[in-house]
């Protein structure tokens, strides 16, 4: 087991553990914080997978902006703990758990089967160039320019939409 692999496994384990804590937590604030930690660990794993640029984005945008937004909303609305609900019909819980288990098993099976096999590659980029942000930027502004612009328009739309949805209704 090499050092790199060990590091990766460690970070991945941290991410998974804190993700579990997030899902199991009753207090929303605690959940968000657990997820933040998980995302940081994930960012580390991204680095291990030769994507430091993305790791940076993960920290800045995901952990630093999106989850902070979540925190804001929780505190704004004063969302409390989840109260236990006397649910008459447990079908959702039962079926949900069951299906998750089945799904996990399926994924495992797929992984064991052929998941990690790769098709032969024609032009593979070497591990030295993969992490290079300049290469990514070049690609973004040439081959993927349309996608780039489209996403920016999407962000604009989301901005407007969020604004409209969340404002208070004016009294007539």
């Amino acid at each position, binding site marked *: 087991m090499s*050092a790199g*692999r060990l590091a990766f496994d460690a970070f*991945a384990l941290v*991410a*998974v553990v804190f*993700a*579990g804590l*997030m*899902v199991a*937590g009753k207090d*929303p604030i605690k959940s968000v914080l657990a*997820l933040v930690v998980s995302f940081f660990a*994930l960012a580390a*794993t*991204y680095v*291990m*997978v030769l*994507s430091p*640029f*993305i790791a940076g*984005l*993960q920290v800045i*945008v*995901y952990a630093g902006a*999106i989850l902070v*937004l*979540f925190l804001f*909303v*929780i505190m*704004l*609305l004063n*969302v409390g703990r*989840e109260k236990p609900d006397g649910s008459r019909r447990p079908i*959702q*819980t039962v079926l949900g*758990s069951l299906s*998750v288990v089945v*799904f996990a098993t399926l*994924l495992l099976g797929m*992984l064991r089967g052929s*998941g*990690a096999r*790769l098709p032969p*590659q024609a*032009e593979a*980029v070497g591990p030295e160039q*993969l992490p290079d942000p300049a290469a*990514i930027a070049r*690609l*973004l502004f040439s081959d993927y320019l349309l996608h780039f612009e489209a*996403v920016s328009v*999407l*962000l604009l*739309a*989301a*901005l407007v939409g*969020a*604004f409209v*949805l*969340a404002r208070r209704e004016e009294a007539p």
Partner: protein
Amino acid sequence: MIGTIPLSDVLLASGALFSIGIAGALLRRNAIQIFLSIELMMNAANLALLGYGAALGTHQGQIIVFFVIAIAAAEASVGLAIFVALFRHTETIDVNKINLLKW
């Protein structure tokens, strides 16, 4: 292989995260927590994409994840806006209680 990391490790991690996220999305009643679980699922997918991109020796994985993060940002803002508007009306965050479309 990505350096010294076998792809199967990456995929295992990604799968585990995804399953946890699904469990959270299905089994929690708090709308915020469901949303968080969905974000977790997206991150699991990001990890898988990056793993494959690195193993295949292409930049495309990173490009896709770049866009995914941007879109996730947009989606999160809009989703939270909806959530805020909903909460103003119903004073509850329990998804079970929001069932106006019931038969």
